[in-house]
């Protein structure tokens, strides 16, 4: 077998330096004729005679040249053909090897292409960032366990406002979304970004899908917390109002404070405006006019504070009060009511029951409302909302100390009533957040609290202490898994 280096070299000269090879052959034969002619001259021939004799001996220079050319090319061809034939024969004889070889090549080429595509996009082509791509950095929060965790929106905002070493700080969070057009549907990975994101990175995108016509993605920029996957909720854990007028003042105050805390939504206890008609509370007779005015005041406060409100209240149906929750959006518009459908037997003479259930949305948050007795003893009401997409179910309730009963100091004490345990169950059995709200009162067996989708406690308001309970909830954790798997709903 010809050594590889020589093969490559001759292949190169035969193909690329053809003219030089041809010239070299001419020169070589001319020199040969000269040598032979010189010998004839030395033997006594005239130069012309000697040269003629040399040419005759050679037997035709053109034929010699042709034969030499054929020797070169013929050799190259023969070798290549032989090797190709051998390769094909080997492959035909071992189809397994053939398949493996093709698969290996395909995987190798495919893998290399894919990796290059990623590297090209992420490393080789610099981000179209500001002026100096090298100045871009990532800020990460690493937990003691080594896990990289997300920032809550308020944490991000604090960093952005107080950082002195960064020119700008943009935030993003990704989720999978369904895109739809006339041609069909497809899933796309979509990022929620902060309002300064485009300015910092200058990004624009076209979404290409085999199922859809190309979609130019216009960045929808988050101007506030509502588009982030972490949502801050507030529970208004204040005293039971002494008068209807005080209920409105306290509600207004709580909404304003919730806005200052950057909460997306604030929830009040059951029938907070004008007050709960039971357990010996002396609430003035129902008044549609008063309620209308009170709702307008709270709605105006909501718009000012940019907070959605779930207001425990009552509405007048056929002259009788119906326990309900009024949902007001962040711009102050009324989204609607969730009436209390399942009354406690003791309430039959006080309130009329509602008939329908519904869910509400504000920003990325979908939520349901179940009122007091419903959440404690009718888990179906919570499951109903979660099966319709609720990530949080709010639970306005009203509960005060009863003489001689256990007075809790921490959450879920065994000696305490079942109520706090039920809160954890509602979350765990549906994989949702469950946010229960009570008025602050001394010795009450329940307090405001938020349960995580896994049934653990996210936080609770200290017993009998007035205040706003703030909780940042991660919407991605509220999958609703166990509710959607339920076969009885």
């Amino acid at each position, binding site marked *: 077998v*010809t*050594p590889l*280096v*020589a*093969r490559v070299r*001759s292949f190169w000269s035969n193909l690329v330096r053809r003219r030089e090879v041809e010239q*070299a*052959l001419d*020169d*070589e*034969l001319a*020199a*040969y004729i*000269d*040598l*032979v002619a*010189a010998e004839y001259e030395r033997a006594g021939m005239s130069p012309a005679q000697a040269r003629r004799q040399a040419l005759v*001996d*050679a*037997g*035709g220079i053109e*034929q*010699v*040249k042709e*034969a*030499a050319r*054929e*020797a*070169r090319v*013929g*050799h*190259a061809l023969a070798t290549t053909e032989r090797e190709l034939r051998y390769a094909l024969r080997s492959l035909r004889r071992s189809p397994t090897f053939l398949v493996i070889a093709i698969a290996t090549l395909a995987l190798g080429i495919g893998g290399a292409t894919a990796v290059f595509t990623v590297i090209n996009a992420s490393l080789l082509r610099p981000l179209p960032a500001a002026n100096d791509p090298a100045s871009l950095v990532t800020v990460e929060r690493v937990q003691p366990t080594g896990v990289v965790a997300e920032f809550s929106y308020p944490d991000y905002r604090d960093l952005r406002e107080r950082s002195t070493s960064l020119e700008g700080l943009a935030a993003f969070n990704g989720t999978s979304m369904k895109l739809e057009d006339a041609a069909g549907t497809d899933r796309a990975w979509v990022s929620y970004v902060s309002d300064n994101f485009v300015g910092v990175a200058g990004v624009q995108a076209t979404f290409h899908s085999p199922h859809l016509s190309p979609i130019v993605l216009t960045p929808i920029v988050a101007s506030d917390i509502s588009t982030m996957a972490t949502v801050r909720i507030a529970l208004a854990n204040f005293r039971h109002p002494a008068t209807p007028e005080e209920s409105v003042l306290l509600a207004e105050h709580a909404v304003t404070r919730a806005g200052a805390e950057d909460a997306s939504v604030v929830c009040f206890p059951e029938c907070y405006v004008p007050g709960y008609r039971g357990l010996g509370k002396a609430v003035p007779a129902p008044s549609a006019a008063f309620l209308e005015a009170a709702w307008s005041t709270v709605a105006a406060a909501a718009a000012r504070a940019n907070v959605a409100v779930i207001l425990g209240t009552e509405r007048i149906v056929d002259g009788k009060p119906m326990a309900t929750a009024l949902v007001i959006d962040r711009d102050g518009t009324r989204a609607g009511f969730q009436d209390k459908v399942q009354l406690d037997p003791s309430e039959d003479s006080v309130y009329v029951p509602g008939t329908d259930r519904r869910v509400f949305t504000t920003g990325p948050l979908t939520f349901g409302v179940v009122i007091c007795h419903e959440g404690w003893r009718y888990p179906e009401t919570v499951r109903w909302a979660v099966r319709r997409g609720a990530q949080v179910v709010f639970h306005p309730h009203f509960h005060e100390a009863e003489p001689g009963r256990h007075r809790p100091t921490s959450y879920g004490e065994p000696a305490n009533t079942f109520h706090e345990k039920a809160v954890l169950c509602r979350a765990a059995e549906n994989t949702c957040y469950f946010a229960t709200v009570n008025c602050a009162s001394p010795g009450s067996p329940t307090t405001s609290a938020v349960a995580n989708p896994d049934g653990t406690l996210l936080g609770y308001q200290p017993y009998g202490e007035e205040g706003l309970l703030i909780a940042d909830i991660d919407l991605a954790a509220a999958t609703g898994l166990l509710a959607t798997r339920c076969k009885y709903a």
Partner: protein
Amino acid sequence: MPRETPLLQGTLDLLILKALSLQPLHGLGVSRRVEQITRGAYVVRPGSLFPALHRLEEQGWLRSSWGESDNNRRAKYYELTKAGRRQLAAETEEWTRVAGAMRAALEST
């Protein structure tokens, strides 16, 4: 002049390698040397000499370069490469084996 013997298939390459085993030679030199070492039995004509030289070079057994002949004429000189020497050794051994076998066969009674 001795009788010219028709070349046995494959022997020309071996003869050329052998002719070049002592020193580099130009085409005419190779032809003369073959004539000499075969005691005139083989005279290699240009029509078979040059194709053979080029084929052997193509196979990497020879290497060529331009130089001066004894009487100060330009000529292309051929020399054995390492691979060429290995090939000469291998072909020599093979030829000896075949020739020995043929002789034994022909001398048997």
